[in-house]
């Protein structure tokens, strides 16, 4: 078992009223799964993803990741946990504009304190694997959206995470680019055994996954 959510609640206080963002979420994810979270705008998809990614907190319930109980961990351990096992892919790529492709890929390794020579090798591997060796000295703004997202995925993968969290990874891409990214996800899932959880609006993208979770107003349906 990779992770388990038990009775997760998250709310905000507004005008003396509790507005629930997540309501009694229960979820078990096994290693090697490819899960799509779906639902209309404001249903809590991204919030759930961020809770799983430990970027966001919750107000009630229990969350175990690799049999560590996340809700009791301090920030430092939490960040150690997710930088070790989780990679993020964002809708708007979120690459650092001031760094080149190569440097963007290298950054997670710096935070994991990987040694210089090993870092070089890993980055070179990744550039090779994603066919972007020729673009390694370019800055993100010099790339197309699809290429940027490719770098985004490569950056998420470089730390060899067990879990990839993707928040509408194809939201800013055209259909052909979308398909390429989804095929890439599928390949990673099938061949490398990486667990993937993605948030998506598109039925077509959701079909790449093995399981679909539907949310409405913060509730599983």
């Amino acid at each position, binding site marked *: 078992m990779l992770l388990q959510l038990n009775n997760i609640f998250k709310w905000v206080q507004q005008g003396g009223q509790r507005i629930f963002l997540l309501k009694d979420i229960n979820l078990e994810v096994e290693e090697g799964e490819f899960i799509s979270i779906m639902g209309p705008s404001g249903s809590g998809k*991204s919030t759930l993803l961020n809770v799983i990614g430990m*970027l*966001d907190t919750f107000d009630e319930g229990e969350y175990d990741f690799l049999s560590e109980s996340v809700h009791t961990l301090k920030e430092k351990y939490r*960040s150690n946990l997710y930088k070790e096992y989780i990679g993020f892919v964002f809708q708007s790529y*979120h690459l650092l504009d*001031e760094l080149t492709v190569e*440097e963007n890929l290298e950054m997670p390794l*710096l935070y994991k304190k990987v040694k210089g020579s090993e870092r070089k090798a890993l980055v070179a591997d990744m550039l090779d694997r994603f066919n972007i060796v020729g673009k390694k000295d370019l800055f993100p703004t010099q790339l197309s959206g699809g290429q940027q997202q490719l770098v985004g995925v490569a950056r998420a993968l470089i730390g060899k995470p067990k879990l990839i969290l993707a928040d509408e990874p194809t939201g800013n891409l055209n259909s052909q680019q979308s398909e390429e990214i989804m095929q890439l996800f599928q390949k990673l899932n099938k061949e490398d055994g990486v667990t993937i959880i993605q948030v998506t609006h598109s039925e077509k993208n959701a079909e790449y996954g093995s399981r679909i979770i539907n949310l409405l107003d913060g509730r599983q349906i």
Partner: protein
Amino acid sequence: MFKNYLKIAWRNLWKNKGYTFINVGGLALGMAVTLIIGLWIHDELSYNNYFSKKDKIAQIFQSQTFNGEIGTGPAIPIPLERALRDGYGDNFKYLTMASWSQPQYLEYKETSISRTGNFIQEKAPEMLDLNILKGEKDGLREINSIMLAESVAKALFGDEEAVGKVIKVNSQYDMVVSAVYEDIPTNNSFNDAHFFMPWEKYLTTQDWLKYAIDNWGNNSFQMFVQIVDNATMEKVSTTIKDVKKNAEEDGEEFNPQLFLLPMKDWYLRSNFENGKQVGGRIKNVWLFGIIGAFVLLLACINFMNLSTARSEKRGKEVGIRKSIGSQRGQLIYQFLSESFLVVLVAFFLAVIIVLASINGFNDLSRKEISFPWDSGVFWLVSFLFVLFTSLLAGSYPALYLSSFKPVDVLKGTFKVGKYAGLPRKILVVVQFTVSVAFIIGTVIVMQQINYAKNRPIGYDKEGLVQIPTMSQDFSGKYELMRTEFLNSGAVTEMSASSSPTTEIWSNRNGYTWEGKPEGFQEDLAWTEVTPEYAKSLGLKIIKGRDFSREMATDSNAILINETAMKYMGLTNPIGKLVKDSSEENPDPPMKIIGVVEDMIAQSPYEPVKQGWYIYDKNGNSSYYNLRLNPNQSASQNIAIIENVFKEHFPDIPFQYDFVDQQYGKKFASEERIGTLSSIFTALAILISCLGLFGLTSFVAEQRKKEIGVRKVLGASIFNVWNMLSKDFLKLVIISCFIAVPIAYFIMNGWLQEYPYRVILKWWIFALAMVGAMLVTILTVSFQAIKAAKANPVKSLRTE
């Protein structure tokens, strides 16, 4: 990792050149000011470091009470030496009498120069640990020996060997050069001691000195001591406190209290008020130290404000880094290293600025500060300074930026909250409070200087020249010279006096007059003058008459000034007699024949001292006062005077001063403060405005969309400009209201030191406020108008 940080920092700086320019430029200016002030403070504090025994060397000071008021000074009488040597010798390692530093003519073959120097006792060179370059350390053993500073030896002998040569001093006596010592550097006491001659020789040079040897009442000398190693200044001071009081016959009368003023206090803490040490130059050290700190703070505030203003841009980076696994501590470290980089670049720029401006600064501050390239301590302190500045400037932005939640920033919903700008606003208020206070302070200093400069001085200082005549060569020559000068056509009137017009050299007491209150202890300025003194100076006689050569009795006449008339309690002083109160004095009483208008001879900031002008029948003149012929140019007049002078005194270098210039020197120290503080104020305002300029451009960019929408809805350029400027103007107005009371309080305190001072007017404050607001509007308007003129279609399309 660090490399990665620097890379990002560098690219960020490069990408936002305008912002970088403001940030680095402002910081560099602020750091340059702090550096220069730091060097200046170091120079001030290291005064007298040349003397290896400076912790043990002291000068004997004396406090005396006149009419309940305590006066303190270094002047002591000769018999004190014996009393201290005989009764308290075990407290002192060295003890030496000294004359005041006075100019003397030194002559060797054809060369004749005038240099200042002291007569001093044999052990003084050892106490001062002079660096003897040639000759012997105890070079004052023989009564006819003289020790010369290297520069003097060079001026007299060129490259010839100096030791053993005979020079003539004041065309009077021959002295043998016994040693040459390294010149004492300028930032030390004794820096005007270009030669030393034996004290014993001094006592033979003038008649009056013979009578001073046993006279406890003649406080015309100074004494320096080095206390023994196991003694403290305080202890020795207590021990010798009453030595003079007990030795003197009427010691009780003025209650003389002796004490040691340690060498470290000579320069910085030599002011006394009613017997208490009240600081001195150390106040300026504090003043400029505070100014330096504030200017640096202003520059740091720019950094903080511009960094946090850009937070929406940097926020995304924070979010990404956090989602990739960065901890907050690492981000703080990253932002701090970024500010370190900026501060380091600024520091090197600041060093360049300092190097470029140090000569100008030296001229202004009358210093000889050089850049301490080779001082390890300087670089260490500089490194700490850079570290400190980057912490000061960088910690707030680092804490603020690193606190962002990744979820918020990455979703794109991140907006700086309503109150996020509050710290920034407070910082702007701090900046302008300091700037406005600086403006007010500078204006008041300038006003005070002008006020004192425009004070009626009592005589006509323009076209008046004085020539020193202290050498024996001049004695008995006055009448001859007067005739010669008058005949030359360059001089319309001339007189001689025992002190220069811009100083009082002698004070006396012990006189009686009709109607003198019982027990009144008078203290009178004493100037001996020739009959045409008032005429040559243009002094007005307001009661009675001037001296007259026709009246033989005038040789026992005196003029008094207006203040003296009131001081002595006389309503009709003409014809009153004043008499030396001691029985044995054979001098006949003197008759007051006239009252002259007060003339400022001492500080232009203080009331004129009560003074007597005594008919000089003994030829005690120290200066000739020449009224130049107004129908010729000053240079023509001076050339003629020099010819006449050379004719009669071929061996004496021709020296002269314009009295108005001498008088102007009284303002030098205040003018220096005025000039320096106006420069620092200008820089403070410049730095603050740079920051404001940067801030406006960010606000304009942040509100680009809002401005676009407003314009589409019909807002005019003026509306938009008004909207953007108003916010900043409000802050500056708040600053004004904080700055005004603070500046009033501080400047009022500063003015208290000057009895003759300008009255603080409300319009000074109003002026400073209006000035600050104008500068603000100008600074803000540039960006505001640019934003207001932008095409709204463009700014709205970006979404």
